[in-house]
């Protein structure tokens, strides 16, 4: 379960890289349940803008969250992929704008100062990925604000 694992990722661990706009984020692979391609999203009126809508995952109704807005960045405009993560408060989808990929992380290159994130990692030659702190990011309080 997600609650039992450490909140972040670490060097040598497998992580899922999630491209969001021009940025890339990393999630510990064990917190990710699956990636849904082109989720069929139903808009959820009167909800906070960070909730892009809800979609159906094998009969479960799952909220799709705007990853960038959650981090306080500008909203992304499309939602071609949804990364399903398990949190203490249930399952949620995080928007990815390109197909997420699995990598093994190298050493951290430093702390990330963004709220809801932990460390920054170098992936590939010149790409930086910021590790997300799922529990901090996907809390009901943070979503409703």
């Amino acid at each position, binding site marked *: 379960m997600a609650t039992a694992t450490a909140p972040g990722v670490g060097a040598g661990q497998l992580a899922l890289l999630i491209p969001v706009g021009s940025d890339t984020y990393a999630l510990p692979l064990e917190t990710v349940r699956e990636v849904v391609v082109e989720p069929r999203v139903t808009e959820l009126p009167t909800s*906070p803008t960070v909730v892009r809508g809800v979609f*159906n995952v094998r009969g479960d109704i799952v909220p799709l969250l705007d990853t960038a807005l959650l981090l306080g960045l500008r909203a992304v405009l499309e939602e071609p992929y949804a990364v399903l993560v398990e949190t203490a408060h249930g399952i949620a989808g995080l928007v990815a704008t390109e197909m997420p990929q699995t990598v093994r992380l190298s050493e951290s290159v430093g702390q990330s100062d963004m709220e809801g994130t932990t460390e920054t990692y170098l992936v590939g030659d010149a790409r930086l990925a910021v590790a997300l702190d799922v529990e901090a990011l996907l809390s009901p309080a943070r979503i409703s604000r």
Partner: protein
Amino acid sequence: MSPSDSIPEGDFQRLFATEAEGRLDTLVDELLELEKGGANPDLVASLFREAHTIKGGAAVVGMAHVARVAHALEDLLEEVRRDRRGVDAALIDAVLAGVDAIRTLIPLAVAGQDHEQAAFDAEQRLRIAVGGPAVADKTAPPPAAPVRAAAPASPGPAGRAGLAHEQAAPAPEPPAAPPVLEAPLPPPPRIPAASPAVAAASPDAPGARAVGPEGSRGPEPASAEPLAAADHPAGDHATDQAAAVHVEPVRASATEMVQMPVHRIDDLVRLIGEASAATLRLGSALLERLKRDPSTVTEYRDLVRSLNELQELALHARMIPVMSLAPRLRRAVRDLARETEKEVRFETRGEDAEIDRGVLERLADPLLHLVRNAVDHGVETPNERRLRGKPIEGLIRLHAMQLGSEVVIAVSDDGRGIDVDRVRAAAGRTDSSAMEMDDEAALYLIFRSGLSTATKITGVSGRGVGLDAVRASLNAVRGRIEVRSDPGVGTEFRIAVPITMATLRCLVINAGGQAYAIPLHSVRAVLPPQPSATVGGRAMTMVDGRPVPISSLARVLGTGNGSEGPAVIVAGLTRSHAFRVDDLVDQRDVVVKGLGELVPRLPAVAGAGVQPDGSILLVLEAAGLIERARRMDSGDRSVEAADGGAQEAPAPRQAPSILVVDDALTVRELQRSIFENAGYRVKVATDGEEALTKISEERPDLVLTDVQMPRMDGFQLTEAIRGQPSLASLPVIILTSRGSDEDRRRGLECGADGYIVKSGFDQSALLHAVERLLGAER
């Protein structure tokens, strides 16, 4: 009597287990009644009978240890019945302990586990309570204990007799009996004795219940001893039912009852749903093939109405009284009061409120939490109460009430109330915003989820125990909880839950290009496109000769424009509201699910259902929707009140209004459609002068103007607006094809709030700018 060879013993044991559970509930309830009201021969007799019947049943199904404890229980109660032992707290404790032991022993016995020691301990305790010697060795209970046929005069409130354990012997029964539901039937249409299940509803047996799932007893004529006939092992099982009968003595004796497996009612509900769907297809066939509008065909309307009534009746058959939970709660109050050395009276009101059985089951734990909290942390110690001049005995009240499609259950106490300052202080350690909350908001911190916070709050306020869990379980049944607290006077928690949770019959409509379901029980009528008039700044339409406010559903939801389609009249708890929709789709049964914990509660959205094609259908909530529409209405009125001018009556007036000023028709209409699609109201003007006139007629919420225009250009218009003190705060956006720095500077100098260059213009950027300036809700 022994179980027939063809049926495995385990099935009888399970059957006995369900029966015993109901009897134990009754026993506890009556016991607490006894404790409250002092010695009452009828009650004692009834208690004795329950114990006796349990003993007999246990022996028959081979649960020797259960029988042994029940026997001890029976003996103890016999002492009371014969006035050889008085009723005191020790007695009540002993009997409760015995009941608990039996509750523990039965499942163990069903599982075939050894439980000798527990039985022995419980029996010892009961023997000690008699005041007699502790029986050292009494291994097997006498399976054929003398039948005390000398039954007391009163057959008990529900006509429940339990005269002799012979009656408790199981009859041949389908294995693994399904849960059984006891439904009150309206008396007038007498059910024909078409099936054995209702055959025993003998008219000459007033107060007797017709009993027994199919095939259990056969169509034999109603017994000459109706009370005995009613006492069938398959009869009283379901826990809640037994209690339900008890708390409603008057009703039960005046109503004929049948029992039937729950799944039969579910089948009924499903079939009615299918019939409704077929009716809708019939309606479209009428329209397509015969060119007749079904709503004008009387026969069709009658059919639809009958089906709706049928559906409602069928759903009602799943209902049981809320107060069937009262025995368990009363017991909890009593136990905890004794443990904490407090004196507490437990009162119930609202015996007639009913709720879906499945919903009620989910409410048991939350309510238990609340009453325990009330005893533990609400009610003060007797000493403290004396010092405060309160009655020594604290009062905890459980009050249930049906309000529209919801049942409201209140748990109140007259204790010390919640110390909001301490809640705030505790929450403030982890969340600085808590310190700025007003009392009301701070009070709700007690529900905050997150274990660490809850624990800390609990530590100081003593009120947080499990309240986040309470809220979470209520979410699962689409319920909500409110709390009110008056320091020194008391606390009240109110739970509101929908009466039914199973499938919800819904009207499906389109609004703003998306389908939504509106629960049918909150739909009062559907009307063809309606004319509306403005009354007091609010659009109204006439429904049945009475004015009802009308709004566009898409606008209220913030997803689109007004529409000219039919109006759905929705009734909330106290008021009605008409919503214009694009069109009607159909009626459907929706299995409503919650949206999960991560999504904040949305008052206008009740939940969602997954459709057969995999899409998600949102189910709207009448009360929340109406509240939202009214808020938008009143927000609109306050804008106009500030203006003070006379107004004419543009139809829907909920959304913010934008005045678009441009001399080019195409641009004007393009912008009109962009903003109307986004849910705004739009007015247009062709130049600055006309714009000023329009503004003086009705002040818009925002002005969007071009620069190059005849007579008065955009800069001049902006300056003119800023020149009037009453318009100083009116947001102005200049939209122009001129991208020069000089123009930009001039635009901002003359007081515009935004300057958007058309070449770099995109729809979402424009909407974003407008939204930001209007401080839109979302």
